[in-house]
Every structure is written in structure tokens, then in C-alpha cells.
């Protein structure tokens, strides 16, 4: 339950003590959502509960459809979006996988669905804790993907997500990834802006010539053979490329209207400016990393952090530029990619690819840590940083992938 604090923020914003999931629900009220579908799975279910409460309390008027499974859940909002509704959906872990057929068709149909993935390890073994492999499964399909790490960022990013996805130049689905437990189930002080500001920021969803309506008779998703498909893929490719500019535009507007938010939408840089060693991760892993970095800085070690917010589109040019300054890079994946190059995680290999044409390519070390929701301990981080320093001194990495915090 959201608890209003006694002291209101000096601005028009309302201060609430809410979880990441509740923050998303607050944002959904502000964007005046039309249709939402639900099917319970931890940790995403906290969002569906929060929205249900909003509707039950009369704070939001929206169709709330409990589907009989994730497949239908995503299919229903896909159709609702096609007829012009602003939609929301979400899932976690194997639930997201069960919706896979619908996740695949959403980008080519240019449906600007916004979804929350409460990151959860894929079964088996049945587990509730965070791993990023669930959301990452759509990484090649035309879904925009971003990771958040605070309740405030959950709320703000949800507002931005609708602005970006529903931009006529884009019309692609967008999944916001939130680490299970650490964000979905953890309450923090969050600023909720007034609706007037949101109305200034977010135009109404206008599907234009793609609207499925008797006054605009069209057929959606006819059969197409090899003489059409590559053109359709190329259209998707172009939309994803255009998303880069639209995302930057949206963040700039967000800062202008709400008076907060990052200048660089793509990644957060924490003490990375002058760092010898830059660690990279996504989501709430930033929190133990920041603590470790402060400790290391106190000991005179110039370590910094880049927390990647956007994974699709992947900010490869800006990242290569930022990372080129370091003497060594340590990528910490909260995911796995068995059999991939160097047996690394997904992020490490994306960054390797992004750096391939860079003028400066510092040694890159790959780490896998915190799988299944295991806590990332400071000792793990120190160990990683030591190895990065050794690589910086040697001028090359050992090309191995190191598992941290695993019993051995």
C-alpha cells in the first residue's frame, strides 16, 4: 500500500513510499491507460495487483482483463493496441516465455505495447530470483529493451516508454525490465508528478493509417512470402534506428517538463569520468557496485561504473567512446549465454562487438554474478576489480569468463 509521507516535496510532485512495481502503476494512472491484461507470476504480479487496486479505488478507468495465460495476455493487448487503445502488459521468467509467439509478432505489426518484465530466473529449477535471460530473449526481435534500478526510475521510464513506443516514427513494443525482489518488492521514496505535466509530455496515442477501424478498412498480418518478408524486416530495422533519436528527444523533453532525469538516456556514469577500471552492469546490481566503488576510491583506486539503461537500441557508439577512456573494462552479467564466444554473458559479448571498430580497446574482462537472485557481495566486486587492474597492467585480458560468488 502506498503511504503518503507527511512532508510534501517542495515541487508540485507528490512524495510516496512505493515499490518499483507500484511506481509503474502510478505511471499507468498518469498516462490514462486504456487496456491492461494480467496473469499472475512472481515478481511481475505485484504490478498487476497495484493496477487492480488503482482501478478498484477509482483512480484509473481502464479495461482490466485477467487472461487464462500469458499467451492470451499478450495477444489481447496486441489487438487492443491495433484498434487504438493505450495498453500495458507484463510478465516474468517462464511466463514471458509462454507468451513468446505473441512477443514475436508484436514488433512487425508495429504495436507500441509497453510491458514490464519483472526479471526472474527461468525454470528449471523453479526460482523467484533475478536473472536477465527472460527479457533478453526478445533482444533480436524488434522490442526496445531497457533496465531500471530505482522506483523513481521505474515511474519516469514508464512515462518515457509510452512517449517513445507510441511515436509514429517508431511504433515498436517496449519492455521495461525490473529486477525481481530488489526493485519489484522494495519500497522507496518516489516523486509522483501531477497529471498536467504528464499531459504536456505525452501526446495521445494516434495510430493513424494503421488504425484497425471500420472507417479505415485494412487487413493486418496477411500471409507474405519471400518476396515481401525482407522488406518488412527492413522497415523494423529502420524503426529501431529511428528510436535512437526519438529516445534522446523524449529524455530532453522529460527534463524540460519534469525538471529531473538524466542528460544521457543510455547509461548512467558513476565516477567513470577519470576511472582506470570501469565496471558495467544493468539494473540493481549498480547498488552494491556503487558501494564497492566508494570503498575502493577511499583506498585510492580509481574505479567507476557504467550502468546500462538501454539495451535495445544498444548505444554502441557512445559506449565505445566512454569505455575507450579506461585502462580495463569489467562487464558483470546477471545472465548467461552458454556456448557463446568466451562463454560470456550477453552484455559482455555485446560490448565486445561494440568495441570491435573502436580506436581504443582496453582489455575487457567478463564476469557472471548474482544469478538466480543471489546477492552480489562486496568481496565479489573487489575480486573482479583486482583482476581488471591486473589486466590493465598486462595490457590484455585473459579472455576468460569468471563466475563470481559461486561455491567452489
Amino acid at each position: 500500500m502506498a503511504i503518503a509521507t507527511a512532508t510534501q516535496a517542495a515541487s508540485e510532485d507528490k512524495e510516496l513510499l512505493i515499490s518499483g512495481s507500484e511506481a509503474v502503476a502510478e505511471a499507468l494512472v498518469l498516462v490514462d491507460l486504456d487496456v491492461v491484461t494480467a496473469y499472475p507470476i512472481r515478481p511481475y504480479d505485484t504490478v498487476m495487483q497495484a493496477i487492480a487496486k488503482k482501478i478498484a479505488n477509482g483512480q484509473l478507468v481502464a479495461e482490466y482483463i485477467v487472461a487464462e495465460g500469458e499467451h492470451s495476455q499478450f495477444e489481447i493487448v496486441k489487438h487492443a493496441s491495433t484498434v487504438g487503445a493505450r495498453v500495458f502488459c507484463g510478465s516474468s521468467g517462464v511466463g514471458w516465455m509462454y507468451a513468446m509467439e505473441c512477443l514475436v509478432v508484436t514488433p512487425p505489426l508495429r504495436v507500441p505495447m509497453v510491458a514490464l518484465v519483472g526479471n526472474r530466473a527461468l525454470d528449471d529449477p523453479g526460482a523467484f530470483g533475478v536473472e536477465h535471460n527472460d527479457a533478453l530473449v526478445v533482444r533480436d526481435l524488434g522490442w526496445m529493451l531497457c533496465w531500471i534500478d530505482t522506483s523513481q526510475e521505474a515511474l519516469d521510464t514508464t512515462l518515457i516508454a509510452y512517449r517513445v513506443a507510441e511515436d509514429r516514427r517508431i511504433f515498436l513494443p517496449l519492455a521495461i525490465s525490473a529486477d525481481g525482489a530488489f526493485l519489484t518488492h522494495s519500497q522507496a521514496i518516489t516523486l509522483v508528478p501531477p497529471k498536467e505535466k504528464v499531459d504536456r509530455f505525452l501526446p495521445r496515442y494516434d495510430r493513424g493509417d494503421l488504425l484497425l477501424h471500420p472507417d479505415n478498412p485494412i487487413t493486418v498480418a496477411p500471409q507474405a512470402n519471400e518476396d515481401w518478408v525482407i522488406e518488412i524486416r527492413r522497415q523494423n530495422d529502420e524503426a529501431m534506428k529511428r528510436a535512437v533519436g526519438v529516445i534522446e528527444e523524449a529524455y530532453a523533453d522529460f527534463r524540460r517538463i519534469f525538471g529531473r532525469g538524466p542528460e544521457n538516456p543510455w547509461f548512467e556514469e558513476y565516477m567513470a569520468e577519470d576511472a582506470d577500471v570501469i565496471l558495467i552492469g544493468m539494473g540493481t546490481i549498480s547498488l552494491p557496485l556503487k558501494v564497492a566503488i566508494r570503498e575502493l576510491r577511499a583506498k585510492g583506486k580509481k574505479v567507476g561504473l557504467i550502468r546500462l539503461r538501454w539495451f535495445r537500441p544498444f548505444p554502441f557508439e557512445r559506449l565505445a567512446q566512454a569505455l575507450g577512456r579506461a585502462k580495463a573494462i569489467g562487464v558483470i552479467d546477471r545472465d548467461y549465454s552458454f556456448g557463446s564466444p568466451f562463454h560470456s554473458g550477453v552484455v559482455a559479448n555485446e560490448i565486445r562487438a561494440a568495441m570491435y571498430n573502436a580506436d581504443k580497446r582496453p582489455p575487457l574482462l567478463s564476469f557472471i554474478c548474482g544469478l538466480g537472485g543471489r546477492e552480489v557481495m562486496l568481496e565479489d566486486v573487489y575480486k573482479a576489480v583486482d583482476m581488471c587492474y591486473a589486466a590493465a597492467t598486462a595490457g590484455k585480458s585473459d579472455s576468460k569468463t569468471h563466475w563470481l560468488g559461486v561455491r567452489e
Partner: protein
Amino acid sequence: MSALICEVVYRGIFQKNLAARITRGIVLSARKSGRWGIAFGRYGDSPQRNGIPAKDFAIVADTKEELEQNMARYEPKHVDVTVCVDDTLSKGVESWAWYGLQPINRLTEPNGTLLMTSLQSFDALLKDIHMKDAPYKLSLIRAKASFSGLWVYKEDHTEVRILGALAKIAPSFLTLDAVAEAIKEMEWGSELKVASARKTYERIETREVKITEGNAEVPYAFEMPKWWEMREGVTIPAIPIGKPKEGGQGYVPERNPYFKKFSTRTMRPVIDFDTCVKCNLCWIACPDSCFDVMPDGTFDANMDACCGCGVCEAVCPVENCITMVNESVFNDNASQWEMWRTDKTAYKTWLTATIGDKKTTARSHGFRFRGQYDEELKKDLETGGVEIAAGIPGENAARKV
């Protein structure tokens, strides 16, 4: 020439197994002389749709390397032999929207061969087959379109007759003895079939076709849009609603401009507007909305949209009012109603003659009554002159179960 490339153009579903037998037969016959080969169907034709033109291919080569040059393709860019097992396809092939009308001899190499089963004369066929900018040979096997279909394989020997003819056309790849040997080894082979192949080897008729001969019509074609010209979201605009025929009377629906269905038909309805009782049944039953409503309340089958299924004939309550007639009889797609309006007496004469011809009203694919298959089988397989009194619904009323 160290590779032989053949295509078999056939009617989807109805002749699916026939085409597969021919292409497999080509490869297995050539194997007798140590050749390598592949047989495959055009992937885009699958899943097949009833009567829609489809293609199978057989490629044989001296070496595996030569074969590879022709592999991993949907269809070859050129063929040495085009085999066509339904002569109504001489008007061209259009298997999907936006494909345009592709002349039956489009892929045939200069001096290559177009081999058809047909009861028509060379000259009659060349009225339909499009002109080509290179000379080629037209070879005929005397037979009507075989219905060696998917559900009930009718053993009318068409597959072995084609193979026998190919032994004549490409003897360096397929000797008659190799073909005979291969046929015997097939699970569907027999001595009788070998005899049929040998007979066809002798009886095949061939003539040169000059570049001045053939249908001068320029086949309709469509330019495919570029990716940035296409609507996004895998959406296509609906067909708009139609307009009155003339003077606010009647109704002509708009139709898909990118798919004409001309080559889909093996038969078309011929309508007696004088006996039409304007009951609407054909208009209601037509799955392709092919009927235009005329100002006088009768119904004209629009050849842009008719796929030749014959449902209209089946539902029409008036004897001889709608009669399905083989497509080979027609040389254009003009409106019958306009013809009737212009000269009613001449139309009646034409109609009577057209629907009275038992040969052209016999079904090329499918049967009108139970037992027709057995009846046809009894007829002489070799002449292909399967002539049956199956044409007129009224005549068969007693046999309809």
C-alpha cells in the same frame, strides 16, 4: 549441355502427386546413366490451393558440382524443358498476388521445349501461349488434363507418358531404356506403364515455334514496392466497396487489382441470361464474389474474379442456365452479359454451341457424379479421348446422389 533442367507446371492439389512422380521419374531415370539430380517443389506453392498453378522441378547434371549451381533456389532461372500437364495453363501462370501473369514458356530456354498434354491443335494452343523472343519447340502428347490427384490417384499413365516423351526430347540424359528401367522400379510402376511410355516416345508430336508465333498480348505485370514505399505494420488496405453498374442500377464490387485469377480457372461459367430467374443463388454462393449485378437484375460472372470452382452451376435451379465450360474454349475474358446485350440471337447461338460440346463441358478436375471416375477409367487411356456425357447438370440429375 551437361545439365538438364525441367519444370512441371501443374494444378495445385489436383495434380500434386502427378507432378512429383514426373520430377522424381526424371531424376531416377537419369541416375541410370550415373547422373546426379534433385527434384523439388516451388516452396511458395505450398501449402497448395485447389487449382492454383504450381511448379515442381527436376534438375540432373553430370557432376555434383554442376548440380550445386542450381540448388538452394526456389525455382531455376531457365529451364530446358517446360512440362505442362493442363493445357488451360497455356494462358499463363499466376500463383500469388503481385506475381503478374507469367507466360507458360517464360523460363523455357531458346530452342528448349514446351511439352504439353492437350487435345487441342498446335494452332489453337498458340492462340493462348504468349509470344517468345526466341524460337522453341512445342511438343504435344494427346491427352486431356490428367486428374492424377492428391486424394485419389487416378492411374491414367500420364506420368509415364511424360517420361517417355522426355526420352525423345532429351535422349542424352534420359534414354528410353533408362526410363523404362526406372518406371519398373517405382512402387507405382508396371509393364503396362512401360509400354505406355514407349508408345508415347513414338507418338509425341513436335513443331518449331517461331518468334512471330503466339499470343501477342503483353502479360500484365506489377512492380513490387520498395520497403520504404510499403505500408508499415504488415497492413494492406481493404478492397474498397463497389459501384452501381450504370445509371445507378446494378452493382460491381471492387476487386483485388493485383491478383486476376485468370490462370486459376480450368473452367468458367457460361450463363443464359434469357432463362435466368434472378434468384441470387449464384451471387450468394460464389466464394470469390465474382458475380456483378447487372442493371436488369441478372448476374454476370466477372472473369477478373472467377476461379472456376463451379459452385454457381451447382446451385443454379434452372436447367442449362449456368454451365461450366473448359477454359481452353475462350480466348478472352470479356463480359458475357455485354455480348448478350449487343446481340441476343447471336449470343443464344454461341451459348447453345458452347454448352452443347460434351468435350469442353467435361470436368477437367473433379467429378460431377459418383462413379464418374470408374467410368472414365474404362475409356481408352492411350488416345486420351475420354469423352463422357457429364456436361449438363440437367442430364446428370438422376445420377446425383
